[in-house]
């Protein structure tokens, strides 16, 4: 089976600084892959390269819809990448603050709809039907994620955990087959993290979506991920399933630093 996401020799330089150094990474259909590493290792930069926000210095990126043909991502603008089926969330929440929860999710539906300006003005039956669908689909998404309580609330008034889940709901509204989660559990307490764990597993099974996850909460990473990539100072230092990573000396050194006496 061809990998859903295939990244090889991805390199990114900011002036003299090499943020990413020849990274290879694959995500297979239905898989949950984690990308971990200390702060400043280049994880978010990696996300920004594959979603088109930055243009990488070197390296190729391919996205393949299950049973589809690989499509090259280099040079695509972020909205084209999302249309191709790879949606993302952000490390610091970027919701549309003065729009309601439902409207935020409806924005996610945008690239799947077709009503243009004439359609909006004259509202032919097709556009009217599409508007009804948008509302129904968005509400269904909120039900899946469990946010129907806040449907008409402004995004800025939501509690922190709910805002995180709204970002995931909005990303899923674009009907991706690969979901990028950028530290979804950041700032969450244990009970919220556990709920998030179940949610992500449920998403994988219900929505048939593979997930690439950046996360610092090791318990969550170990319990969720099928495979883990570890990066440090822009270089890949380890790859494998959770058990291998737990015992990998390079990972321990990167995370916990040298033993004094060793």
């Amino acid at each position, binding site marked *: 089976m061809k990998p859903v996401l295939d990244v090889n020799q991805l390199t990114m330089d900011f002036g003299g600084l090499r943020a990413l150094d020849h990274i290879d990474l694959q995500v297979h259909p239905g898989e949950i892959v984690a990308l971990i590493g200390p702060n400043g290792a280049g994880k978010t930069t990696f996300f920004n390269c594959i979603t088109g926000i930055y243009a990488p210095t070197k390296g190729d990126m391919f996205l393949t819809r299950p049973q589809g043909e690989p499509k090259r991502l280099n040079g695509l603008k*972020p909205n084209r990448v999302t249309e191709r089926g790879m949606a993302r969330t952000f490390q610091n929440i970027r919701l549309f603050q*003065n729009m309601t929860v439902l409207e935020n999710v409806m924005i996610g539906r945008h690239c799947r709809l077709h009503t243009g*300006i004439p359609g909006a003005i004259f509202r032919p039956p097709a556009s009217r039907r599409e508007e009804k669908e948008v509302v129904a689909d968005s509400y269904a998404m909120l039900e899946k994620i469990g946010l129907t309580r806040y449907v008409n609330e402004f995004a800025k008034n939501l509690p922190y955990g709910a805002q995180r889940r709204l970002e995931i709901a909005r990303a899923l509204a674009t009907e991706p087959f690969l979901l990028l989660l950028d530290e979804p559990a950041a700032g969450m307490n244990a009970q919220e993290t556990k709920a998030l764990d179940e949610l992500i597993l449920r998403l994988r099974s219900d929505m048939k979506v593979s997930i690439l996850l950046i996360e610092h909460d090791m318990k969550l990473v170990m319990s969720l991920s099928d495979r883990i990539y570890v990066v440090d100072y822009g270089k890949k230092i380890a790859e494998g399933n959770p058990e291998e990573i737990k015992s990998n000396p390079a990972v321990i050194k990167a995370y916990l630093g040298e033993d004094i006496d060793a």
Partner: protein
Amino acid sequence: MITLQEIKKSFLVSLWFMFLTFPIMVIKVNTIEQTIEWRWWWMAAVGLGAFVLSFFWRIAIARKEAGKKKAEVSGEEKIALIPRLMSNPRFYIPGLVATVALVVIFPFVFSMYQTNILITALIYVVVGLGLNIVVGLAGLLDLGYVAFYAVGAYSYALLNYHFGVTFWMALPIGALLAFLFGIMLGFPVLRLRGDYLAIVTLGFGEIIRLVLENWNAFSFGPSGIANIPKPGLFGLKLSLQQSSIFIYFVMIGLALMTIFVVRRLQDSRIGRAWIALREDEVACQAMGIDKTRTKLSAFAMGATWAGMGGVVFAAKTTFINPTSFTIWESVIILCVVVLGGMGSILGVIIGALVLILLPEYLRAFSEYRMLVFGALLVMMMVFRPGGIVSGVRRIYKFEGLQNKVDS
């Protein structure tokens, strides 16, 4: 009750203003005749005025601060008076009848002068709603909006002069030309944000005015184009009174169409994309919205209404020259949108009516007219920063699956 402490503060304020306005107010200098005139009683007037006004100012500011704090504390979105009135049916049905009645009888009851200034106000409603799309919905600060207004006006004037195009043909052509100009002037500014966008659009507005002013062969330069025909009614010869009444109803129709279309756009997919663009450009693009197309569509749709407004403006004044399309026009249209209430159709309508009719009714103040107008602008903004109809952006209220849009 006015405490001693407040009196002291006001006294200090009045001293400060007397010092501040001393040179300009008191010493009237005339270097032509080398004469200097000392007007001490003006200083006394300023002192007294400042003393009294400072009391009102402090009370108003205190009330405003208290109002804001109460809103923050209670957290609930304080729905402004007007939208609350709008929503209960007992009030709006009689209001609806009153509107239609007033709109129909207005030109016959009031004098031609009143009708004329109301036509100007309606033109600014249409143009204001256009700019509202660009500034209010999409959040793109456009200081050169008058360029599209000029495109509309000059396209009608020139087409009529060279090819005898009538008003009714020129209206769509003017709108289309402005639409194209909207896209053309939109492209170079795609990557600009905030004040850089403002200054470049200001530049475009000036470029178009200067080209109109200097390129005599094309636009007849500063001497402008005269006797532009008013809109005809199937070739009938209309007297001045009748034609101004006819233009009035044309404008009412155009304004209604604008309101209808802008509301439709606001509630549509493109409308949401504009609002998302204003909220957060990066997130909006990451969610699959094509930033370029959305921005260009905002510019182009906004420009279309300015084009139509320009065509009617040319027909109404029957003479245009570049001095009518200066930066000041863009500024006034921007004031209409911001003062009325950004993003709210109702606000823009009220903003246009207030900002255009006010200077006319300040005519009684003759040369103090613009002074009072400037002062009112400042006061309106200080005490209603969100605009007259502020805060309530028409949100998409979800009421169960048989969804109904709340106005």
